[in-house]
């Protein structure tokens, strides 16, 4: 059975970096509508910094990789997403410290750890129109698929779909956190940029899960 090992994380970060680079302008444009327009820059530059650091540490084990990623991302972007993703990665590192290498079909635990890190740092609630509104349902979908004993490729598909549905659902929500909160009801009808980039990252995770499952 395939494992969530250091190659898994290297591949995930690499793929997410490429996808976020492709999404750079789109995320900035989304953010410009309800925020300050820097989200694409933060995410693309931040993941590029992670990718650079990880390439410089090819021998790092997963928990160490995630600590390096947290540090690199935070130092590169600061901003709002810096502390949030840094906390997410540190939470995953703590999970791996405690549990050791996980089998591939437990990737839901990685998503849950991210959600926990983000929630603890950002203090957002579900429905606040934040990235949490994608990480939580995606993690839940992965756990449900694991309970139903589905093959990993199918789990990946269901999780990706859940993330994309949740991403689109953020349009119906009213911002109560961050800069967009100033817009109150005017934020309805706009996707949350943090939710959109979360779906990009989760999509990358799911694609790597599917790839390794075959």
């Amino acid at each position, binding site marked *: 059975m395939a494992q969530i090992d250091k190659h898994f994380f290297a591949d995930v970060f690499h793929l997410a970096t490429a996808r976020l680079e492709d999404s750079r302008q789109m995320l900035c444009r989304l953010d*410009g509508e309800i925020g300050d327009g820097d989200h694409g820059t933060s995410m693309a530059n931040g993941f590029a910094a992670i990718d650079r650091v990880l390439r410089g540490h090819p021998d790092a084990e997963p928990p160490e990789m995630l600590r390096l990623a947290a540090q690199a991302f935070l130092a590169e972007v600061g*901003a*709002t997403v810096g502390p949030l993703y840094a906390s997410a990665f540190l939470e995953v590192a703590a999970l791996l410290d405690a549990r050791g290498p996980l089998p591939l079909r437990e990737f839901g635990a990685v998503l849950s750890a991210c959600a926990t890190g983000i929630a603890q740092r950002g203090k957002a609630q579900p429905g606040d129109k934040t990235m949490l509104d994608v990480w939580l349902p995606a993690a839940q979908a992965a756990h449900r698929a694991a309970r139903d004993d589905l093959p990993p490729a199918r789990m990946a598909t269901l999780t990706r779909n859940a993330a994309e549905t949740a991403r689109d659902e953020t*349009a119906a929500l009213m911002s109560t956190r961050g*800069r967009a909160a*100033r*817009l109150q009801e005017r934020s309805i*009808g706009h996707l949350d940029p943090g939710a959109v980039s979360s779906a990009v990252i989760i999509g990358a995770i799911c694609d790597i899960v599917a790839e390794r499952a075959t």
Partner: protein
Amino acid sequence: MSGVRRRTSPRDSAPARPPIRFGDDPLLWASWLYYQEGMTQGEIAEEMGASRPTVNAYLADARARGIVNIAISSEHMRSVTLARALEDQFGLESCLVVPSHGGARSLIDKVGHAAAGILPMMVHSGDTLAITWGRTMLSMAQAARLDGLRDVTVVQATGGTTAKIPYSPESCATRLADNIGARCVPISAPAIVSSAQARNMLVQEPVIAEQLTYLSRLDRVVFGVSSLRPNSTIHSSGFFDSALQQHDFYVSAVGSLAGQFMDAQGAPVTGPLSDRFIGLSLDELRRVPSRMLVAAGVDKVQPILASLRGGYVTTLVIDSDTAAGILRTLDVRLSRYISSSRDKPDTPPDETTEAPTRNLVKKFLNDPRDVVNEAMEGALAAFPDHIMAIDDSVRAIGARTPRPQGKVGVVIGGGAGHEPAFLGFVGQGLADAVAVGNVFASPPPDRILTCTRFADQGAGVLYVYGNYTGDVMNFDMASDLAAAEGINVRTIRTTDDVASSGFEDRDARRGTAGNVFVFKVAGAASARMEPLAEVERLTRKANAACHTIGVALEPCSMPETRRPSFVLGAQDLEFGVGVHGEPGVQRQKLAAADRIMDEVCDQLFTAMKLGTGQRVAVLVNSLGGTPMIELMVLNRRLQQRLNACGAQAHMTLVGHYCTSLDMVGASITLMALDEELAALLDAPCDGFAWTRNAVMKQA
């Protein structure tokens, strides 16, 4: 209409000539008398010396020829348009949208009364009708009046609740039945019982079983929907208190309908409560022939949308803002953003077509990713007497001025893009160090920590920065790191932006140009060698005294995208903007400078309760693209208004202090002063954006 005046025209039978102003046009004359003067057709006939049928024909003709246009007020017109769109989108039998604004009634009562108004079209003799619970349902039930119906039965849609709320299932059903002369059938059991076993026993109780049979033969159902947001009444309803603790289970639920949970697509979310519920199930509800949802408030967009998607609704009564929110939500497609991206054109770039670059803002840039570092290098070279790089990055910048032992350190910081803020306010009598982030993005904790170590002279360090989610997280992390090194750090988050508070409190406000005064007070207090607690107190007081409102005429554009951050129409301005190119709180029509300033003054004066004899410090600040000449025009009116209010400008700053890249617009900051704050503002300071020599002022 009270202004009906008789004209002194001759009352003979010959047709009278219209007064000259009607240009010999009887149609215009007749229309004027009818629509403007409010005369009856008979009176007009007499006035014009024509027959009534002629007048009637004139009026019809006037409409046909476009002399008279009947306009429905735009707010009501919008409601009808929205209703049509919702009917089309969801295949509703009917939809009624009531304007969200105007009138004395609360939003809940507006939709409640509107729903009561259409009950006569919905309920007929012999009908069995179920009603759920909630504030909207109670409002509707209270307003409902139906006479002359026979054999109508109103059934409680779910069991009851123990909570003492006025809008319980029992009261909603009873009230509706009373007001429409119907028989009321209660459900003599709680909506949620303690176990599945208890439920199965209860529903077999003859009385309850009999009551429940009504729910299986309903002709109509009227229901509300609740969100699961923290402010929702569902949390005080007594229905689910223990269940919502297990919210994990319901993480996919977006709303509650008739006491049951559903997801964003309207599918029932089952959980530990599902087999303990007594009442109309969602499946049964969907089988009722006529189903009216009554709901109001933009926080319910998601649950209303779920109800519509789930097919629970045939008739919808809703307010206009919420209706618009639903339609905007449906309109969102991610592809819209991807397809509008010109960074990867589908067609090969053609040198002759200018279109792709037309909307790019011109800027002095090299690689846009280097803009902040290059700007800092330029600033360090320009102001070597004021600032210096603390480490080998150019993002942690310190003051050149000596930092005596025992002086409280003042560290400021935030995103780039606000130049000359924040580094222009580092220097003697101002801040000791500044951490610079990316454009509009907080600096990371390690950089703030570098600044903290630099500023610390053994007496502790005060952080002063704008109250933004990102800055708060990064500075808090830095503060933890500094504490671990034994540096005592206190924090003041600036919250001067009046417009950003909404209905929330002062602590939720953002920090904008008022930062400048707050930095000054912190710097002056620390230069006096006050202890940390005193510097903190004075700085907190300074922040509480500052009030700012920003107005944008054009959006700003980020160096990386070079595109406007939002779209503002040719005749629009954005009221209540912050300093990050984010849209403001309200879009308005462009007006004369004095009128814009009047509105700013009205809001600021009210917010700070400005009165006679009050001294204020004034900052008329460009958001980047507005030139000095216009700032001075604004200041003229501002000073007039201060005079009219009896207030006195103790100090006035006009210029670029805290900008938002190239945004065209200005912000106005007023700081209420007492002796203590005035003295601190008057103290000398020397930053490259604000130099003030010792002033010899007469008392």
